[in-house]
């Protein structure tokens, strides 16, 4: 005998006047539940390709790394800046927009160690004639690109992109010979100013840069 609302049969108990229907669990609920259990078992036992952990997270990571290496080459190896890179540093030296960008980059990334006036604090004074890693544009760029991780100079190639590195280097060079107040004591060896000896830069141009910056301070 079926009543009009068969599914809503009240059970004959009540608790503090709360009653309960004897409805079955909804079909879709049951089936999704069963499906997740089946899927869970398959996934855990990892027997069907595509359902499961496959080769595992370490193997996946290693193939991800290998694929990236094949595509982009060895990224981590220290790089020697090339003569062409150095030329772009020198080109930036004559480009006010590039120098302004270099200053911006320096302000965000470098002042915490070299001070805003480049007078040095954690890192060395970058305006004097004393250099630890050489003062040729190529050398300065190389130092910035690779950093000196053991001495606390970060590897900037991981953070800055191609022309940003050159612009930062150009900005450093442009600040040579300025006289920050209370600079850090000299570090490294005294070197003749060599930036101008690179191809593309004339004595005159260098002198000008120096002069301009000297006036700013």
């Amino acid at each position: 005998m079926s009543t009009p609302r068969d599914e809503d049969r009240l059970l004959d108990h009540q608790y503090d006047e709360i009653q309960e229907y004897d409805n079955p669990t909804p079909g879709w609920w049951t089936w999704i539940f069963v499906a997740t259990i089946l899927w869970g078992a398959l996934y855990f036992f990892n027997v069907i390709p595509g359902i499961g952990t496959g080769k595992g997270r370490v193997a996946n990571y290693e193939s991800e790394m290998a694929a990236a290496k094949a595509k982009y080459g060895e990224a981590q190896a220290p790089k020697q800046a090339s003569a062409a890179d150095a030329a772009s540093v020198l080109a930036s030296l004559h480009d006010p927009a590039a120098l302004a960008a270099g200053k911006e980059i320096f302000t965000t990334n470098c002042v915490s160690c070299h001070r805003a006036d480049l007078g040095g604090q954690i890192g060395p004074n970058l305006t004097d004639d004393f250099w630890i890693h050489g003062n040729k544009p190529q050398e300065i760029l190389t130092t910035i690109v690779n950093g000196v991780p053991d001495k606390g100079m970060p590897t900037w190639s991981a953070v800055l992109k191609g022309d940003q590195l050159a612009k930062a280097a150009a900005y450093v060079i442009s600040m040579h010979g300025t006289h920050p107040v209370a600079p850090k004591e000299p570090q490294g060896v005294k070197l003749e100013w060599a930036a101008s000896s690179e191809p593309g830069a004339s004595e005159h141009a260098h002198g000008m840069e120096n002069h301009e910056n000297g006036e700013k301070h």
Partner: protein
Amino acid sequence: MNASLDSFKYDDAIVRKFLVATFVWGLVGMLVGLFIALQLAVPSFNVAPFLTFGRLRPLHTNAVIFAFAGNAFFTGCYYSSQRLLKARMFSDLLSRLHFWGWQLIIVSAAVTLPLGFTQAKEYAELEWPIDIMIAVVWVIFAVNFFGTIAKRRERHLYVALWFYIASIITVAILHIFNNLSIPVGPLKSYSIYAGVQDAFMQWWYGHNAVAFFLTTPFLGLMYYFMPKAANKPVYSYRLSIVHFWTLVFMYIWAGPHHLHYTALPEWASTLGMVFSVMLWMPSWGGMINGLLTLRGAWHKVVEDPVLKFFVVAVTAYGMATFEGPMLSIKSVNALAHYTDWIIAHVHTGALGWNGFLTFGMIYWLLPRLFQTKLYSTKLAELHFWLATFGMILYAVAIYSAGLTQGLMWRAFDETGRLQFPDFIETTMKLMPMYWVRAVGGGLYIIGMLLFGWNILKTWAARPKVYDEPVIQAAPLKVQAHKPEPSLHRRWEGLPLVFSLLTALAVIVASLFEIIPTFLIRTNIPTIASVKPYTPLELAGRDLYIREGCFNCHSQMIRPFRYETERYGEYSKPGESVYDHPFLWGSRRIGPDLAREGGKYPDLWHVRHMQDPRSITQKSIMPPYPGLLTSTIDFAGIQKRVDVMAMLGVPYGDAVTQKKAAEMAKAQAKEMAAGIAAQGGPAGLEDKEITALVAYLQRLGQDIKQATGVAHHAAPADGGM
């Protein structure tokens, strides 16, 4: 009058107490939440050491979970249990001890957390004396509750009570086993577990605290208050049975989904994932039973704010329990873990499910408890809309923040390098969303204030003396025994059997994961170059814990190219074998620190800790200038090292010759000299900053010395 009937009264005074506590702590917890949300947008709000983000975040989470939701559960539990069992609470004294004990715990938490006393385990931050208090008060509650069951006048237990039983038993087990630790001082202890095992225990606890403190108790409340408010029968008794048992049995396994791609063994993380996915339907069972109970009562929802709150609560529960299984799928988790997405997820649960259910329940209770009309239904209605709108703003903002963060962290440019290598760039993108979140949270809190006003005015209109109706019911022993239609129905009349079965489900499931995690050595291959922290570094680590740095910094690099490119080699299980407690963290408001050692010179750290914005202009990290002036507790170091040695950390001479303080002083002196030589402040040899920097400089160093071995650390001797 029927002589065979007992006459008794319900204790509603205790319910009123819990109700008021729920509101007060809810407001406090949410205000702290709003404050720390603002600190992320305006770092200068980190005004004093005890008000920094790292110390206040645990205060917010603990207040909302244990004080707000906890008191809300007790309110509803004391009200409904007495009525469902047809008995006054077992002991009025125990009820009062429970109430005042719990409030004392909350006050102790509110004092100790800002002072920096913490175990560094999420939602289990409180130190050992408070943990003992929690255990005692919980036992008082349990005795009171089960005592009431023992003297009940209703043979069978209603589904709400099943959920209460499961919650009370499981929370006790979780709390005790996760908090096992050895005290070092009156408010300081070290977890007896280390590294991988500690992480496993913590998330076994952490996940199930969400399950058995925020989910099952509230499902119990829903099963009582929803049919009451709607005046409709519960949709399906059979669904109640199936979803109750599947929830109780399956929830416990899901904990490891908090540790995907970490150094936790992969089988455990996979197990956590598949059980989470299987939990989807058992969780939805509660939602279905709640929403379908409203069939034929939807017209009432339009008029009744109580039902409105319930509908949104159950819907939020449904969304959160769909999202949970989804987030536990490894590939989704890879994107969401460590980001604001997880914060959005918990707030769907906390604001939506726990908050709305509590509001609805209290609006329903107010006229009954204060025996007068609700002061204003209009205000309640307004509260509902403010809270709903606030919650939506919150969710939209923080889901976008989470996605943005996750996607920016993993973005590569066309040359195969990270597109956003500068971490702070990814943080700055979130600022607008942090503001919207604060506005959303603010609206929710304004709703809370209206709620408070409504409570106050209703209370003010209460009768001089509460009418306490005398209830009559037959004691169990004179009630006729009817044959039971099913086995389950029989269990419902046997609370002891029922409770034991529940406990068994929880314990068996736990042991399935715990035993292998602790006993199988290959799970944690040792790395020969990993050595204990020096005494000074250990002292620094304790400062890292005190300041709550782990609330913003993870120390667990996952095996993905975008992680290793940013932070360095991924973290290995063998690296944290001496970490009591583990400090892997669960959130990256700042960058991962697992490989921080040697990245910058000491002086950089000194300056950065003193004023992060002098180094990283846009940093949102709190400043810690006090560390440069406060002195290291050298005298206390020996005790700390001794306790570590007791836990199996090989400290050698430092312990046998009692040399710890001496070693710490020597190391601090050398470091301080170095910092001064770099041009930094002089005289740091006894300052806390030196210990902290020593610790930071140690992070990840051991494995660097073992490059080559690092990739496949052989499962050598000594699995622990």
